[in-house]
């Protein structure tokens, strides 16, 4: 049974020069789990909004073709009627919740469908239990963390038992553990209740194994609509930036078909005799280049720190302690990634580093100015022109030389990020430390690679870069050192290759495939490692050579 159907849909936003969607035709059957992917600005969110009835009802513009949700045509039925059949979770969880308590939020959707009181109460309880948010039901929505907000928004979309769920990057603010949990909760609901899922996600490796089908969209058109393996084959040939790390690893080894996940990748490598059935050595031997490099980090190095936090506490009045004696020392030119679960204290630590917060105990010292880029680059924009926000030299340095006359809010996600960086680094005393909070949210892989290269350049010039992220693949590409934060304390601090290769959640897909062998994190490293089985040099040396 078809639950969602696009029939020759074209759409142009009011005042736009080109179509956001162009002759899109697709149908999604009940019980299908579909991933929607593509580069930033390709039209994914517009397609999702069209499925929810928000396009054209809320956005205006020029619409052609037809979208049918469970038989209802969105041209004649508004978002309220479509909402009875399609549950939607948009990108920003802050505006997704409209009531003051979680229980009222969940009840809202079912009450509005006219269900009797008993059915409302049952639906709320069942959905909360299914999504593991039973403990949040009586909490005020204003007190929830970002991760909790996203779970509650998902529960509010599911509570009325829709036939199709539409999700726009629901894991963007979640740590790897919570992100995986959410994807598998969706998969379970999808399997048990026959609910179709249409999910936008940039980090495909996170959900490829759960998907039945992957739809890629380019310039508003459907470029590929196949099963995961078919999509990965297409991406390998046409759009390498959309490939998963596992597919890139096997692609580099000239092995096909590409795997849809870690399990398939390991099975394929075993079949080719590249991976033994036994668990390999997870850490490099003492005295290898990586072990030697570790000694250069932090206080042990003896080099003057660019940023130093000594026993920093941040205790809320009438509330919990967010930081509990955090210790961190970063040298000039270091590229450090800060990781940890939601609520571990990463953003608070960065705010302390930048001097926006005063520690309730402990000290923060820096050798110079600390430039901080917070999660939402739009928060830095006050003017109508990009040229009024930062000097021409700063714009040029950020790669925005020709965009001085553009409105900051009209720039793409990556451009906004760079404009905010230009503002933070413009004029005054040069920043000795650059701190960034989740800068890759909503970025596609190509934009992330450009950002990683730009940040490595800054580190090469002697700026200490400290970056908080949940994106393990980006962390591996950018950083040389990783710091793991939990409950407001630093619980692990070491070379990125060690920290992101030995675990399961805080590990790259390549490291999980290779089970931490040789501390290989990126596909190129993994391929070098596997190809180099005949190379007489030790594995860590091969890995060190493969790293950027």
């Amino acid at each position: 049974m078809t639950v969602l159907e696009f029939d020759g849909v074209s759409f142009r936003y009011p005042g736009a020069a080109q179509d956001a969607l162009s002759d899109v035709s697709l149908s999604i059957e009940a019980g299908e789990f579909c991933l929607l992917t593509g580069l930033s600005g390709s039209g994914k969110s517009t397609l999702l909004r069209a499925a929810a009835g928000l396009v054209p009802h809320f956005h205006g513009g020029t619409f052609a073709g037809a979208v049918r949700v469970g038989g209802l045509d969105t041209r004649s039925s508004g978002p309220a009627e479509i909402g009875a059949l399609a549950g939607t979770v948009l990108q920003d969880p802050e505006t997704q919740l409209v009531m003051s308590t979680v229980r009222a939020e969940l009840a809202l959707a079912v009450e509005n469908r006219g269900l009797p009181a008993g059915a409302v109460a049952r639906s709320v309880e069942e959905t909360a239990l299914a999504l593991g948010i039973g403990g949040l039901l009586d909490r005020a929505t204003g007190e929830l963390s970002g991760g909790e907000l996203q779970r509650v928004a998902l529960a509010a979309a599911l509570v009325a038992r829709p036939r199709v769920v539409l999700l726009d990057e629901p894991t963007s603010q979640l740590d790897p553990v919570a992100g995986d949990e959410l994807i598998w909760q969706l998969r379970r609901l999808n399997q048990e209740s026959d609910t179709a899922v249409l999910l936008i996600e940039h980090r495909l490796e996170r959900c490829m194994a759960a998907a039945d089908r992957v739809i890629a969209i380019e310039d508003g058109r459907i470029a590929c609509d196949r099963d995961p393996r078919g999509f990965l084959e297409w991406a390998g040939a046409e759009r390498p930036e959309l490939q998963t790390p596992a597919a890139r690893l096997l692609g580099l080894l000239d092995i096909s078909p590409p795997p849809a996940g870690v399990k398939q990748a390991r099975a394929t490598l075993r079949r080719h005799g590249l991976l033994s059935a036994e668990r390999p050595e997870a850490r490099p031997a003492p005295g290898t280049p990586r072990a030697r490099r570790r000694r250069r980090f932090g206080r042990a190095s003896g080099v003057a720190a660019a940023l130093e936090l000594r026993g920093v506490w941040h205790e809320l009045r009438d509330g919990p302690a967010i930081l509990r004696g955090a210790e961190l020392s970063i040298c000039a030119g270091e590229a450090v990634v800060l990781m940890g679960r939601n609520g571990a204290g990463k953003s608070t630590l960065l705010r302390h580093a930048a001097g926006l917060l005063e520690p309730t105990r402990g000290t923060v010292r820096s050798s110079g100015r600390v430039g901080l880029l917070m999660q939402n680059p739009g928060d830095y924009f006050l003017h109508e022109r990009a040229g009024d926000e930062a000097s021409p030299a700063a714009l040029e340095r950020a790669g925005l030389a020709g965009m001085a006359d553009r409105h900051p809010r009209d720039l793409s996600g990556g451009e906004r990020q760079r404009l905010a960086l230009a503002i933070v680094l413009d004029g005054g005393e040069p920043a000795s430390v650059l701190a960034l909070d989740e800068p890759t949210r909503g970025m596609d892989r190509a934009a992330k690679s450009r950002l990683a290269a730009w940040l490595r350049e800054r580190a090469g010039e002697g700026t200490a870069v400290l970056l908080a992220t949940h994106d393990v693949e980006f962390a591996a590409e950018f950083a040389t050192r990783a710091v793991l934060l939990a409950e407001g304390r630093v619980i692990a601090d070491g070379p990125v290759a060690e920290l992101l290769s030995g675990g399961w959640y805080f590990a790259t897909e390549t490291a999980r495939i290779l089970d931490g062998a040789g501390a290989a994190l990126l596909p190129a490293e993994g391929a070098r490692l596997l190809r180099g089985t005949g190379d007489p040099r030790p594995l860590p040396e091969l890995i060190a050579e493969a790293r950027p």
Partner: protein
Amino acid sequence: MSARARPRVLAYRRRATPLHAARAPVAAAYGGALATAALIVDHPLLLLALGIAVLGAAVAAGVGPELSRAARRSVIPMLLLTVLVNAIVSRGGLTVIARLGDWGVLGQVDVTLEAVVSGLVLGLRLLVVSLACLLVVCTANPDELLFALRRLSPHSALTATLTTRLIPVLGEDARRLAEAQRCRPDGGARGARGRIQVLSATVSGALERSLDVAAVLEMRGYGSARRVHRARAPRSRHDLAFGASAVGLIALALLAQLSPAGAFAAYPLLSMALTPATFALALLAPLIALAPFADRRGIEP
């Protein structure tokens, strides 16, 4: 993202108190009765008694610090301003306590005892009404109130829901924008100019934000014309106690205003009743208001 800090603004949070255990319309009626009583009576002693009743209720409901903070920041300055303006502008009163000379447009300014007391009574009334309203904000669940309003007027309820949701969202936007300005190398514009820049950026983003909130409400079927059902909670002992207290407070205020015991006139000369009945009424007001808090059975969420 770290867990958000506790909100500094006044907001409803379910606490284990008798007033929070009452239904939202009852809690709102109780706070409303305190405010209405303060609008009915004129006698300063009775107003003072009602002020003590509101503060006592706030402490008993666990929101005393929030209300005293709000009073210190905005209500007491307003009270002082009221007294000052009334003392300077009012031409009534015969007991001159200060001659301030010729003030140009205002002419000869003489401060009279009657004008000062009248200003104090006005300010006291403002204080009690404001604190009673803040008590409602902190103790009546807004979702339940909006639900009740929705039955009466769906469109007004929709507007109220959008507004109540948008205010904290925009407040959070403004906080983040101000923080981002501090991250600029020059620390951003300071003082009034900085505040205006942040306010302007917040307002320009408000339309985008309100569209997002409206879209979510629409998708959840808020605009649908279907009748909304909600399980009616049985009337608890706290509903009955606070309901009775609200009725009692209005009755007491009417009795005080209509009887000689509550008589008060500021001009031309101060005159007020100070009989045993006046003191009895002043004592009764806090007793009636605070009596429902004595019963603490079944107050856990």
